[in-house]
Every structure is written in structure tokens, then in C-alpha cells.
């Protein structure tokens, strides 16, 4: 639907679950104004219930014929987890009389089941799954909105909510099979990961990708054959979409954790050629492409071990941010130039839809972007 498509690749073999991405996102966007409970970026443990709780069973997405499926809206307390504070003020200078306690009685929260995983010792297993909005090619949220308030940007496929049109009906939440769009009760509108578009347009990657200490995230345009994103997704086919069976054609791709440690036999000896995370589980999450991805990854790894060249391994080592984040340098600046936008007018490129929807004849763009001339 869009002319171009930005995408992100995350290498799950390298994710250590440190939540730096989560914090980068939260401090940038969601620590205020009714968004406190939201995690536009979260890192969950799989196998696990995830965030929000049991999101994979909460419906949405499309059936095999391309029809939108019904879904549910997760509950603040039971599924997302209500944010809480501690009684620090009370405790200060009074530690003998008071104990540290939260001001809520939480029953669930993001990472409630962190590191639980599955399987019995010594063959228990889990891995970390960082999740942001997938900026899908056929977004379930966009399809579900009766207000048609959700749009996919022509210039890069980023999916955004037009907050002027959004009326807080929450069908988008039911429609998104990843439950990555959230209801902001304070403004009674839906909000979601914006792929840090104000950063992207200035040539910076999203905060979650930039801050990642394990350097597991690549960002680039899917049709840019020079980008490492393109190479991981299309050239080597080692990066796969999450739950492709949901039918929304997600644009966040994962290098599946197929390089897990071996299982142990009854005597505690490692079983040659085995791996801790079952392929069936990975196939459920990332589709049948995991087998090909596993084969390529192992082959390329062997190649490198033999001292041979491997472009794929070089990419996965993430030598430099400059190569990992290829935002076509001046792509957006060129678009702005084509439209004759100068200086701060640059933001018009983004914001037209926020100001004027397809059915808003009465709103004048001028109200937001008045041309103030010098000396008037």
C-alpha cells in the first residue's frame, strides 16, 4: 500500500533481555500523559504469556481468505498490569517503621513471567522476544478502525493514528493480533509505536534500536538492496516475520534463536547436534522459514569458523551503526525539498494527516502552520 517500507530486523540469538530498548522507548514516549501502562517496546520471555498477557490468543488479524477476525481488548489490571509506585516518601527517614511496598496490588505486569520458559532442568529453555509495532503491510488496526483514523505513510509505510479522527472506540486493539496498539484513557484515544518517525526523518534510527547494547537491531528500507535489512530478509532469508499466520504481513523481522545450546542426556552429557529450543515452537512463531534460516545460519557460521569470508556473519556481528541503520541518508530531506518545504516546515511532510483527514473540509491547515513573515 505504501510506496516504500521501513523495516527492522532483530537477532534473537543476541538478545540478552536487558530491557534497555524498553527504557529507551519509555523515557522517550510513554512515561506520561496516560501512557504510563503502555510499552510500545517490550521484551518478553518465550515460551510465555507475554505482554499483554496471552496476546497470541487475543484474536485480530486476518483469516486465510483475508477477512478481519474478531479480537478482544486486554484488561488494564489482568492483562497489561497496572503501573505502581513505591512508598519511598513514607520510607524516607522512617525505614524502621515502614516496609517498602507498592501502592497497588498487582496481579500481572510486563515480564511477570520473565525467565520462566518451559522444560525441566537441565533441559529448560527460554529466549527473549523484543516486540514493537510491526508496521504491517496489511495492518489489522488500520482495517478495524471504523473512523478510518489509522493510516500508513506513503513515504515509508509507518503506521500512525490520526489523533484528530480517533474517537477511542478501541476496535483497533481488537483488530491488531500483536496487541501493539494501546488505549490512552486520559485522552480517550488510541496510541502506538510511531517507529520514532521524528528521529527517522532526521536520519536517526528509532530509540530502541539506537540504544540496544547487544546491537541486535537493524533498520532500513526493504527495497534498498544495499541495506543490511534487505540482505537479512531477502538475500539470506534468515530474518522472518513473527506469527506470519496472523495475516497482516509484519515488517519487523526476527533472526530466530536457532543457535541454542544442546540438550543433556540422563547422564548429564550434551547430546550432539541437539538444540534446547524445539524447532516446532520456533516454527509456530516464525513460520516454516525457520528451517531454511537455521540451515543458512549454521552453514555460514561453519564457513566463518573455517576462516572463510561470510557477509552474513559480518552483518550479524554488527560492526558499525552506520551500516546497521541505513536510512538512505537524505531521503526525507529530498522529499521535503520536492514539496518546497523549508526549515521547520519540514514537519508538514509528516503532519498533514494529523491536521486534515480525507473528510475534514472545515479544518484549515493554516491554523497549525501559519506563515509568519518577517516584519509583519
Amino acid at each position, binding site marked *: *500500500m505504501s510506496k516504500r517500507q521501513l523495516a527492522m530486523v532483530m537477532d534473537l540469538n543476541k538478545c540478552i533481555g536487558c530491557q534497555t530498548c524498553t527504557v529507551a522507548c519509555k523515557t522517550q514516549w510513554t512515561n506520561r500523559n496516560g501512557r504510563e501502562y503502555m510499552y510500545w517496546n517490550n521484551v518478553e520471555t518465550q515460551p510465555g504469556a507475554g505482554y499483554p498477557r496471552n496476546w497470541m490468543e487475543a484474536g485480530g488479524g486476518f483469516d486465510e481468505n483475508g477477512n478481519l477476525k474478531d479480537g478482544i481488548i486486554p*484488561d488494564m489490571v489482568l492483562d497489561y498490569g497496572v503501573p505502581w509506585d513505591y512508598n519511598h516518601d513514607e520510607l524516607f527517614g522512617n525505614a524502621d517503621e515502614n516496609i517498602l511496598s507498592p501502592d497497588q496490588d498487582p496481579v500481572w505486569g510486563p515480564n511477570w513471567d520473565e525467565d520462566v520458559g518451559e522444560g525441566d532442568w537441565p533441559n529448560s529453555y527460554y529466549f527473549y522476544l523484543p516486540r514493537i509495532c510491526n508496521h504491517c503491510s496489511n495492518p489489522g488496526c488500520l482495517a478495524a478502525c471504523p473512523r478510518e483514523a489509522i493510516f500508513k505513510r506513503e513515504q515509508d509505510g509507518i503506521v500512525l493514528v490520526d489523533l484528530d479522527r480517533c474517537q477511542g472506540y478501541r476496535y483497533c486493539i481488537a483488530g491488531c493480533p500483536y496487541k501493539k496498539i494501546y488505549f490512552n*484513557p486520559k485522552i480517550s484515544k488510541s496510541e502506538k509505536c510511531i517507529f520514532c518517525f521524528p528521529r527517522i526523518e532526521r536520519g536517526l534510527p528509532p530509540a530502541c534500536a539506537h540504544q540496544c547494547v547487544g546491537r541486535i537491531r537493524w533498520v532500513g528500507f526493504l527495497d534498498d538492496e544495499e541495506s543490511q535489512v534487505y540482505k537479512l530478509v531477502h538475500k539470506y532469508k534468515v530474518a522472518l516475520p513473527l506469527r506470519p499466520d496472523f495475516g497482516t504481513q509484519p515488517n519487523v523481522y526476527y533472526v530466530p534463536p536457532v543457535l541454542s545450546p544442546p540438550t543433556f542426556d540422563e547422564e548429564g552429557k550434551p547430546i550432539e547436534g541437539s538444540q534446547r529450543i524445539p524447532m516446532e515452537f520456533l516454527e509456530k512463531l516464525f513460520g516454516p522459514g525457520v528451517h531454511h534460516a537455521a540451515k543458512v545460519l549454521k552453514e555460514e557460521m561453519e564457513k566463518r569458523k573455517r576462516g572463510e569470508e561470510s557477509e552474513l556473519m559480518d552483518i550479524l556481528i554488527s560492526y558499525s551503526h552506520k551500516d546497521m541503520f541505513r536510512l538512505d541518508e537524505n531521503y526525507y530531506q529530498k522529499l521535503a525539498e520536492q514539496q518546497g518545504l523549508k526549515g521547520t516546515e519540514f514537519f508538514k511532510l509528516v503532519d498533514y494527516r494529523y491536521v486534515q483527514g480525507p473528510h475534514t473540509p472545515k479544518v484549515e491547515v493554516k491554523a497549525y502552520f501559519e506563515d509568519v513573515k518577517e516584519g509583519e
Partner: protein
Amino acid sequence: MKKALKAGVIGTAALAITAFASDYSAFYKYEVLNAKKVNKDLTTNVNDPVWKSVQGKYVYLYPQISVRLNDKKANQLIPKKELKRALVKVAYNNNEIAVYVSWKDDTPSIQGKYDTDSFGDGVSIEFPNKFGKGITLPYIGMGDTHHPVTVYLQKSVAGRDYQKVFVSEGFGSLTEIKEPGTDIAMKYNKRTHLWTAVFVRPLKTENSNLKAGLVPIAFAIWDGKFNERDGNKSLSRWKFIRLQDYPLDKEYLSYVAWGVPYKKLGDPARGKQLTIQNGCNACHIYDDQKVAMPGLAPNLSDIGGIANAPYLRESIVNPNDVIIRNLNPNRHYNKFAKPDKFNAYPNNSMYSWYVVNPDGTISSKMPPFSHLSEKDIKDIVAYLKTLRDWKNFK
């Protein structure tokens, strides 16, 4: 439901004795709200003594199932809904009109301050932006491409006065506007279990002029208990406010009063056969006719409660007059088409309710059935008016 039918039956019985082609007594009795002229300022105070002197009338509201939304829990609750009844009163002075709406709700719901899945009770009224001689009725669900409407909404949301005014031309086109001089209030009475709302607006605004003898108005009520919001609601058909101060156009009266009472209009059993013979069931789901694919066309299972007879007639004879932009066309994509380079599939045009012509105009996908005889049309409309079932919604 029972009460509505009973009222209809009584009406028919009374009319059997006196009814003539030009007799509008049933129309006046059931479809017209007599507004009272007052010589004082109108306020949104629900306890304003003025309402004690205004005679009210009951309006029935039916659960909306013409289009199906995608909230699983809300959909499961639809068959559990009951017919809603609201007491409506209208007053006006030289410049303003006030509409009083009161309905029973044993479980007042307020949208939570910090909650994701609670929904507040609410109420709205709508007026067509243009009406009168020669102008057909808009689609009841917030207007259509040829008939913009103004919608006034009040919801109970914790911590704020959630009132809005919109202009709309059908699904997806609702656009918020600021209308000077308009105010809404909504209060719950814990003793009587009644919600009461009062809407006050100028008779004449930038978008519409209500200074006319007969003003169409429609009502919608949202019950938070059933997760209602947006199209998930109960709605009335078009009712008509009689403003004595302004001249009544006879032609318009005869147009909007056509088919009232519907039980005198024709033979519903024959009408049903005609709908099957003419293939209505190929696209529409209604009654026991369930072969059409869901979403292909509006579900007509309770169309009888929410659509006026002249609207139904117009939709059959000239569907292009009321083209409804169907709910978000992205809800169905064509899995059998070739996806683009980013794997995006195009929308499935089969589910679109209109076609875009080469000159940019749009036409309804429903062909006109203007070749039907007057009797056939009357029988079909008489049948459609009997359809008032949402209990079997799936």
C-alpha cells in the same frame, strides 16, 4: 419489542376504521414529536421546570447489527440486548431548540479514568443538514454520501465532560466540528434509574437550518454494560419534530409519512417471496435468509426497526440516492490477488458497497429495482418493516 409491536397493532386497529390515503393520523401519532414553543431561554438543566409542561413521546431504539464490528466480547453480548425505550421531549424558542431524552438504565456505566476496557453510557441525536421538499432521507447510520448530517454526542467519561459535535457523510467520515451556541448535559438519577440528557442548539447553524414545519431527527443510545460505542449501539429510525411556528410542506409530509402504518402497506408474506425471487438474499442476510457472505451488504435482520418506509422504498427503487460508504474497506483484502513488493494485498473489491466510475462519481453496487410494480414495492417494504430481530446475531 413486545410493547412496540403492541403499539403498532393498536395503531392499525384504530386506523382500520378511519384511514384514508391522505390520513396522517398514524404518522402523527407514532412518528411525530410535537415541539413546544416557549418564551424563555433554553438551558441544559435536566430538571428545568419547562420540561414538566412539555408533552413527551416514547421512541424505540433497536440494536445496530446492519454492520458487524470486530470486538468479540461486544458481539457476544448483542443477542442479550433488549429493545430500548426513550422518552423524548422537544422545546424551542425563536432562536434555539432543546431536545430532552430520558431512558432507563439500571447499570449506569462510566468510562474509567485509568482503564482500557470499560465503556461509558452515552446518547446522541442527529439532524440531516438538508431536508424538506424534494430531499430524500439520509441513511440512518450517520448519513451518506449525498446526505450529510450533524451529530450531537454526550458520553459519560470519568473526569471530563465528553460532548462533541460532528458532521458526517456515512461510515468513517465523522468529523468533529465546533458549533457555537450548542451545549449538552447528561445526568443519572439514582432513585429513578433514569439517564436524562438535554441537547440545546441554535435553530440555525452553519450546517443546518431547522426552521421548518417538520424536522427529521434520529436518536442513538450507548449502554456501556454491553461494551457499546461507535456503531455498536441502539438507534431509532428517523422521527420528525413538528415546529408549529413554521410552515408545513405538504409534499414533504406525504413523502415522509408514506408507508405509515406499515401493516396497512401491503402483504409481508408476498413481500418476502419477492425478496427471494429478486435475489435480495444473494447479498443481504435477513430473517431466515442466511446464504449471503457476511459483510457483502448491510445485514437487514432488524432493518424494520431502524429504517423508515420511504427510505426503504428509495433504497429499492433508486439505490444510488443513498450510497453508503461501507465500513473501512481494508477489513477484507484479496488474498488471491498478487501482493505488492512489500507483501501488501489489495482490498477485496467484492466487499465494497459501491463502484467508482471512470469519471470519479460513485454508484451503488445494488442495482435499481425500479421496474417493480407499486404493489410489489409496497409488499417488499411491508415485509422489511417486520424485520426486527437481533437475538440471533452471530
